[in-house]
């Protein structure tokens, strides 16, 4: 079967496990085991090819657009890891099905476990850097969910979170590193990358690539100073700790060291970074492990230490070092896996993991104790066990290094020291737990675990012995193919258990002896350790950094965003000013475009001064005298209208004028309702700030306008002037632009108007305000709501005004006017009726709903546009013709006029709807008298 199944089968198992979970107690375990065993069988079926030195490959295109294929490779290195992952996985599944309480959601557990297995297999078999990364992140994620298996425990949540953030961050660094690597090599295929070692090592980007990839490696493999997530992750159920956090996942980091050995290793930077970190971790982990009272804590730090050892071996950059590293990966997986399982059994049987309480278990569980003692001895490096062999290789490697020169003796010394501590903590594991007096008030009386729970431990311990005694016959071939997969051509190495009486053996003996000494003086050591070394931990540092980050971000955000609109607006204006000014400075742009301006005449000058004065007056008055401010703004509006007339833009002037009238009336209504309370004074500095900002913004806009207007350009308006009459059928170019050339914009804008009216209606519908009894300055409102004279004059005015409005509408296409202006004129006339005679009076006579008006208007305008579609012309295409009417004579009829009618209706409807709703705000209070918006009580 294809090697793809090695990954797919566990994935299928992951899907199946929760589905069958309900059937029987062990159903999901069976499903998981079956999937794993089948995958193992598939892997083994490829063994002949792999042992023959072939690389089995599989390639499916996945995302060719970024050079990512589903590419798998099963070479010697991958094969060794696949076996490790699947075989230990099988044992862990067996163990877990007995370890987990019966009432646990096992389906979820096994699904996650197998998902992790899939990801791990993906990492070791990936033949594409990006794919490797995909699986890499997946292991972090499944680890997160497995550590938090029992989220009701705070330690589990905390451990899971820290582990995820640290390994996730490392994963992102790895991503960057791999992207850089791919960029340098020009391909993400692993085969290409492995072949490009010289290119990469000689490249300028080598150091960044190395550092980024190593960040991924060190976080994943719990190297100092990122090690602290691993002890926290021990809150996971023990099968998870055994599988992920000692045997496999934490090896993913060192696996990368092995995988990229041909590409990245062998430089001085590599040696100092990888070797240095590895050695530090080795010593630090070994030392710390001795002082952990928690059984799993001790094992966690021991794991960190052994990972440091492996990292160091790879850091040497020599082929033999790499082989030793690979060997120790295998050995460590075997003995540490069994130790975690034994620790789990002890935890399971005694209810605690505190070594100060669990003593003398030999009497209760001699069989388990024997197994654990063998495994712990392997961890200590006792001869005839597997740990001894790889440790000898390690000692041997430290001896002949010429890189360090005069201080070369430091390395063997450090190695022996680490060995000493390893012996000491292994001894502590054995002696404290199984001997050392009697247990101290345990929750339950321990006894041997169920038969099947011991089997995985038995198998692993047997392997420790087998490999330790017959290395050449057992692990030899695997190491051979692993090394050739890793390095291409494997160096010759000797797996004999007896090399004669040489330096490594002396170091081993020293370590053993010193380890016993250290352990026997442990009480003194513990006391000294507690006294001299402050209780710090990476975890606490992590939390402190997180808290600091939180604090800083809070401060920054509070400064930017204090939830005050004024502050927001200041930011906005300031940024716009600075960033639009930047190009001026950068490009040395001059504002003056060279076009001569028109001479300044007296009228324009007065108008400009008037506008400026009115604008300033508006700002000054706005705080205390709103009415005055409103009058000032209407002065601005009026002068602008006059300016339009002055420069021969009658349409614009008419529009501006009618808009001015309507908005002023509506604003007056709003002012009436505004509360009159005292306004808090603004501090002086803020007034100055606002003054500066406002002036700068105003001047900036003026400068922009000046820069635009002093430059000549070729506008498209000439086209409009030329074709308005022959093609648009109207001589008023402004109107033809509005209803024809750019009728689509107008269509959008009347939609906005309609929606605005609807929105205002919706917003004010339920709102009822208390009408104020007094106006500005405490003066009472006049009692006469609807002065008779006003009412009497306004009524005959209405038909006249409407007539004017219709006139403006009809002439619009050829002379100043149009639907928008006409709508505003009609609106003003209707407003006047409401003001003069009250809302009720008007309402009774105004049969048309305003919504209907808006709706019909929109429908007419849209309908004109859609009619064009029927004739297979683009939306809003206009047509016009000439009709001969009796009396009137030849009349031009353009479809654009229908469109304009739609505009007219929408404008009238909107204005009236807004007015009515504003008026209604206070009308709920008194229903007796006719009430108008200007009503005062």
């Amino acid at each position, binding site marked *: 079967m294809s090697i793809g199944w090695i990954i797919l089968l566990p994935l299928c198992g992951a899907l199946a496990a929760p589905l069958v979970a309900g059937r029987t107690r062990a159903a999901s375990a069976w499903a998981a085991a079956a999937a794993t065993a089948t995958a193992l069988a598939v892997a083994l079926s490829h063994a002949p090819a792999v042992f023959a030195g072939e690389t089995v490959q599989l390639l499916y295109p996945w995302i060719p657009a970024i050079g990512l294929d589903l590419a798998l490779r099963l070479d010697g290195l991958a094969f060794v890891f696949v076996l490790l992952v699947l075989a230990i996985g099988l044992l862990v599944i067996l163990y877990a099905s007995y370890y987990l309480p019966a009432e646990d959601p096992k389906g979820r557990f096994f699904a996650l476990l197998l998902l992790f297995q899939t990801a791990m297999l993906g990492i070791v078999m990936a033949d594409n850097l990006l794919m490797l990364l995909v699986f890499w992140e997946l292991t972090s994620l499944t680890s997160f969910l497995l550590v938090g298996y029992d989220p009701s425990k705070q330690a589990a*949540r905390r451990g899971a979170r820290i582990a995820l953030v640290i390994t996730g961050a490392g994963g992102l660094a790895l991503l960057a590193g791999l992207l850089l690597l791919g960029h340098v090599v020009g391909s993400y295929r692993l085969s290409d990358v492995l072949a490009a070692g010289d290119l990469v090592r000689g490249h300028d980007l080598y150091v960044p690539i190395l550092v980024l990839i190593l960040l991924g490696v060190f976080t994943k493999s719990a190297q100092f100073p990122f090690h602290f997530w691993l002890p926290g992750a021990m809150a996971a159920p023990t099968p998870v700790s055994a599988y992920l956090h000692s045997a496999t996942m934490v090896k993913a980091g060192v696996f990368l060291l092995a995988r990229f050995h041909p590409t990245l290793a062998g430089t001085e930077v590599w040696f100092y970074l990888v070797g240095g970190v590895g050695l530090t971790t080795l010593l630090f982990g070994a030392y710390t492990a001795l002082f952990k009272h928690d059984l799993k804590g001790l094992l966690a730090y021991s794991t960190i230490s052994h990972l440091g050892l492996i990292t160091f071996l790879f850091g040497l950059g020599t082929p033999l070092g790499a082989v030793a590293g690979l060997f120790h990966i295998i050995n460590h997986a075997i003995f540490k896996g069994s130790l975690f399982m034994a620790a789990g059994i002890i935890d399971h049987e005694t209810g605690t993991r505190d070594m100060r309480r669990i003593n003398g278990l030999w009497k209760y569980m001699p069989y388990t104790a024997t197994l654990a003692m063998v495994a712990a001895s392997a961890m200590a490096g006792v001869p005839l066990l597997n740990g001894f062999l790889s440790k000898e290789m390690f000692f041997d490697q430290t001896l002949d290094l010429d890189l360090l020169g005069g201080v070369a003796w430091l390395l063997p010394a450090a190695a022996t020291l680490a060995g000493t501590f390893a012996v000491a903590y292994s001894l502590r594991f054995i002696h404290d737990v199984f001997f050392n007096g009697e247990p101290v008030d345990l929750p339950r009386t321990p006894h041997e675990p169920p038969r099947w729970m011991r089997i995985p431990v038995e198998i692993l311990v047997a392997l420790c012995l087998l490999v330790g005694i017959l290395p050449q016959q057992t692990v030899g071939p695997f190491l051979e193919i692993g090394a050739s997969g890793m390095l291409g051509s494997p160096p010759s190495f000797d797996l004999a258990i007896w090399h004669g009486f040489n330096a490594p053996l002396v170091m081993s003996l020293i370590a053993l002896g010193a380890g016993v000494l250290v352990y026997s003086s442990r009480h003194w050591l513990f006391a000294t350790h507690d006294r001299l070394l402050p209780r710090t931990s990476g975890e606490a540092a992590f939390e402190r950094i997180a808290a600091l980050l939180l604090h800083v971000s809070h401060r920054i955000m509070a400064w930017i965003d204090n939830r005050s609109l004024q502050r927001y607006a200041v930011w906005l204006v300031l940024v716009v000013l600075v960033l639009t000014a930047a190009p001026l400075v950068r490009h040395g742009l001059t504002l003056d475009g060279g076009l001569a301006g028109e001479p300044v005449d007296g009228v324009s000058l007065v108008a400009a001064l008037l506008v400026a004065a009115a604008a300033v007056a508006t700002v000054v008055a706005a705080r205390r005298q709103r009415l005055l401010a409103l009058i000032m703004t209407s002065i601005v509006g009026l002068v602008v209208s006059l300016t339009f007339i002055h420069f021969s833009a009658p349409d614009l002037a008419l529009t501006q004028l009618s808009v001015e009238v309507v908005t002023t009336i509506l604003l007056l209504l709003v002012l009436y309702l505004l509360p009159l309370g005292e306004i808090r004074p603004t501090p002086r500095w803020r007034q100055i700030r606002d003054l500066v900002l406002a002036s700068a913004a105003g001047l900036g806009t003026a400068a922009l306008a000046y820069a635009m207007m002093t430059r000549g350009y070729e506008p498209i308006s000439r086209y409009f002037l030329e074709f308005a009459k022959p093609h648009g059928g109207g001589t008023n170019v402004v109107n033809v632009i509005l209803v024809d050339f750019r009728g689509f914009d107008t269509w959008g804008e009347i939609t906005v108007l309609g929606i605005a009216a609807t929105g205002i209606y919706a917003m004010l519908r339920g709102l009822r305000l208390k009408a104020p009894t007094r106006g500005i300055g405490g003066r009472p409102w006049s009692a006469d709501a609807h002065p008779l004279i006003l009412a009497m004059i306004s009524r005959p005015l209405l038909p006249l005004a409407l007539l004017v409005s219709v006139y403006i509408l009809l002439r619009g296409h050829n002379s100043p006017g149009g639907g928008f202006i006409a709508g505003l004129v009609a609106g003003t006339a209707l407003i006047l009726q409401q003001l003069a005679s009250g809302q009720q009076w008007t309402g009774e006579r105004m049969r048309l709903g305003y919504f209907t008006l808006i709706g019909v208007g929109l429908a007419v305008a849209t309908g004109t546009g859609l009619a064009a579609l029927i004739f297979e012309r683009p*939306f809003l295409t206009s047509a016009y013709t000439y009709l001969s009417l009796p009396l009137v004579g030849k009349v031009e009829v353009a479809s654009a006029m229908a469109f304009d009618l739609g505009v007219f209706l929408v404008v009238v409807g909107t204005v009236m709807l807004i007015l009515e709703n504003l008026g209604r705000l206070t009308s709920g209070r008194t229903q007796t008298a006719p009430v108008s918006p200007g009503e005062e009580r």
Partner: protein
Amino acid sequence: MSALVISPVLVPLATAVLTTLAGRRPGIQQVLSFAGIAAFLACALALVALAAADRPAEAAFGGWAAPFGIQFLIDRTGAVLVLVTALMGTASLVFLASDADTGPRHPLLLPLVHGLLAGVGGAFATADLFNLYVWFEVMLICALGLFAIGGRLDQLDATFKYLALNLLGTLLLLIAVGAVYAVTGHLNFGALAQASEALPPGLATLVLAALILAFLIKAGAFPLFAWLPASYHTLPAPVLALFAGLLTKVGVYAVLRTLGDVFAPAPELLYEALGWIAAATMLVGVLGAAYHWDMRRILAFHIVSQIGYILLGVALMSEAGNAATLFYTVHHIVVKANLFLIAAILWRLAGSYDLRQIGGLYALRPWLGVLFLIPALSLVGVPPLSGFWAKLLILEEAIAQGRVAWTVVALLVSVLTLYSMVKIWMEGFWSPHPDPQWRLPRARLWPAYAATLGLAAVTLWIGLNPQPLLTYAQAAASTLGAH
């Protein structure tokens, strides 16, 4: 053809009018609304099919050929965004049928939602700068309506802030559009592209800076984003999801359309500045999210942060960068909207948006956890979800161009995003519920699950099979700036 090209505005607007008329009959209104969105979706699919076949839908309104009339031109970029708009509309409207923070049912809710979709659709379809402004206005006015119809005091406060700040943006946009017209004499994109080539760099920088800044206000970029976190959390969830997914993205799209297409290559200063703005946006957005406990506020700040990534793609000033931007935008709209919707489901089940007040959902609703993790991890950029590919494209291009600082920020922000999502997961799912009396309420959630599952499926699909969207985005980018 001519009818299809205007469908992104005509169909939702017609639906808006019809649903307004049916305001008194909720049943009929609902049916009309679903029919309208289904039609929109169908039209959008047809538009994508046309664009992908290199026959982009096109129309010159009123029969006035460009550059004199207004033109709609729905190329690949526009078409896929119209499709996502229709998709989001569908999800949001389906979700509205549940009872997960959908707010009081106002007769104008559905019309305004459709109006909003019309504005968004128009913005993606138009090829005219002033017409783009018009659609921004349609969006703004509908957004204001949607804020206001709730009528709560905090909503009115949000309405006002949204109005005031967005009006400043709109004003700037109007000035900028005027300036662009003043120096080029054109509004049509194609004509502007021609005319802008002759512009002296200083003048071009000035005018475009104003234009881009106006769009950046709409996009919620640093430091112009204040309106977003100040207002978004007051909206009912489905509307919020729509806003979060679509509105800022229209601003981003406008930046892409102008800097990446019409005016490309613009003066380099603009791209350089945009890059730094993007980096700051990423960072400040994610920092803003860090200390909040309200899921909606956290997610709102993440909108800002993610906008930074998308803008970075434009700032890279290359075809690959533009393709990345488009891919990222599509991915992000789906993911972001979904997160808000799922947060609403959490609210319904656990009783609050405040993470300190909820918990315990992992044990009771593990599949909801999976549903949450899909968009959450996609937002972070965990492979193989859609966000990973999106980030990969951006990072790859940034690395290829040697933009070290921007790359570092992008990676750092990913870590902080992860931290944020883990926080929601921790408090919402893993921590025990603080109220020991709490029980899962009986809730009408199937429409909510239907909507969120659908969006999660899109995320997964893009994640596991990114090739189609990727080649589409690359093809789209290849036509951008090609004039």
